[in-house]
């Protein structure tokens, strides 16, 4: 490691300090007893207690979770189909338009996506509420899912599928028994990505939510517009905690799976 110089150590230290300090500070100050968020007045968990009694936040959290589960599940099905079409369906009329519509939402400014969906919902007379948020979230997250899944589909050996077909599988059975298990990690990470994108979205939800359904980001945004609040610090800490545990667990599980897969492959090589 002769090239790993002091410069590299410094840039990593500063870089990660920059990325993590703001969140660490937020977490520490969520345990601050004072209502003045910038003055430390001793350790306390009172803001967590107040948060759990705030029904508006709890309602919004429940709406957000339902939207995220529903939209990421539909998006995973549609996105996997779209990825399959992009990689496997060959040429068909309108393929260019199709791939354009898959990639465009990834870079489309959120304000435009939100505005256009809202105008559609009003145009067809669909009342804004939980259904419209689910439709909106499904649409942009299916594109992310299809990008993740198609990169896995591209790299996998097609002859496996062909072998299954030769051995008498129907195309659907071949997909279920051969393709799906192989692309499963990509499908799962696609679902997780869609789920977090939905949990996180403020702009598109603001356009597509109605008075009957408010999501957590909308609630947080309207609260923090007025300034820093200790309850929001507590809420943020809970959310950061869930994400941290989730990501670390997911990466440990996938590491174990890849170690296991490597061991199996080596065993297979030795057996031949």
């Amino acid at each position: 490691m002769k090239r790993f110089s002091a410069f590299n150590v410094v840039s990593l230290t500063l870089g990660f300090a920059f990325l993590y300090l703001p969140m660490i500070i937020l977490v520490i100050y969520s345990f601050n007893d004072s209502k003045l968020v910038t003055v430390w007045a001793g350790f306390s968990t009172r803001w967590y207690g107040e948060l759990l009694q705030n029904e508006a936040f709890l309602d919004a959290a429940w709406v957000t979770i339902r939207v995220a589960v529903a939209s990421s599940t539909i998006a995973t099905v549609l996105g996997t189909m779209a990825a399959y079409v992009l990689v496997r369906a060959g040429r068909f009329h309108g393929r260019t338009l199709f791939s354009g519509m898959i990639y465009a939402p990834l870079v489309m400014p959120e304000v435009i996506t939100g505005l256009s969906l809202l105008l559609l919902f009003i145009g067809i007379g669909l009342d804004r509420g939980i259904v419209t948020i689910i439709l909106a979230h499904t649409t942009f997250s299916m594109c992310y899912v299809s990008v993740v899944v198609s990169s896995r589909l591209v790299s996998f050996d097609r002859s496996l599928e062909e072998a299954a077909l030769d051995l008498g599988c129907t195309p659907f059975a071949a997909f279920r028994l051969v393709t799906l298990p192989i692309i499963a990690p990509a499908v799962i990470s696609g679902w997780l990505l869609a789920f977090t994108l939905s949990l996180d979205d403020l702009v598109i939800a603001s356009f597509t939510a109605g008075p009957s359904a408010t999501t957590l980001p909308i609630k947080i945004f309207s609260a923090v517009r007025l300034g820093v609040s200790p309850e929001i610090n507590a809420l943020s800490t809970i959310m950061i905690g869930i994400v941290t545990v989730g990501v670390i667990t997911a990466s440990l599980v996938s590491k174990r799976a890849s170690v296991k897969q490597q061991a199996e492959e080596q065993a297979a090589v030795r057996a031949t």
Partner: protein
Amino acid sequence: MRRLILIAVPYLWLLALFLVPFLIVLKISLSDTAIAIPPYTPTLDLAGGWAAFKDFLGQLDMENFVWLTEDDLYWKAYLSSVKIAFFATVLTLVAGYPIAYAMARAAPEWRPTLLMLVILPFWTSFLIRVYAWMGILSNEGLLNGLLLKLGLIAEPLTILNTNAAVYIGIVYTYLPFMILPIYSALEKMDESLLEAAEDLGCSRLQAFWLVTVPLSKQGIIAGCFLVFIPVVGEFVIPSLLGGSGTLMIGKVLFEEFFNNRDWPVASAVAVILLLILIIPIILFQRNEQKQREAEG
């Protein structure tokens, strides 16, 4: 038959919820504002047949776009969004490159952990990461408290609600988007190329400029587009960290729609924003395609 269904379902979904809504925006941007529900005319009445459709086309005009060019606010907002996005991209590159470089040079057994540390903030709520800076940058905030205590400043600096805070917020939230593509370009690089350059008489710095930077070009380009394109239309960061002087078009569009309820003008703002972004979006997709071809 199965193939048809497989293609049709995602295709129709995207047509109905991505393309059609966009055409509606385009149509409303060409309509007139009205005090009615919905607040614009004309509305398309398909029952009227061809004559009604021709009549409908005849009522569309460029009035809203003319209005946008006449009002300073919009011009300034577009220009200042592009300017802020440009400088923020440069700052993010300057901050992100050394981190990506150090990650790619770290021992291979460390790399997955470092990579996870970069990705982790990306999974955390964007809104919360922006919000975290509000408590740090405010006048009574932690940064001013620290600087006052150290005696570096005599009175609190005003950072929150200025463009400086907007830049900090953008660099902070978009840093992983810059680091990841540069890291993946640098990681693939063969280190013996650097040794060869040094053997041939390059100094370390020269080897860096002549070998490392050109080899990571694709990653730099991808990272810059991934930051620049979404930042131009950014709404959350200028709303929470920026002040009244921070003009960004995403915020203008949001306010035009929700506060002024002027749908035709908001739609026209959206159409022009997309026109501004279409060139960088096409360049970005070309770059991605080139990379895919180079790998495949």
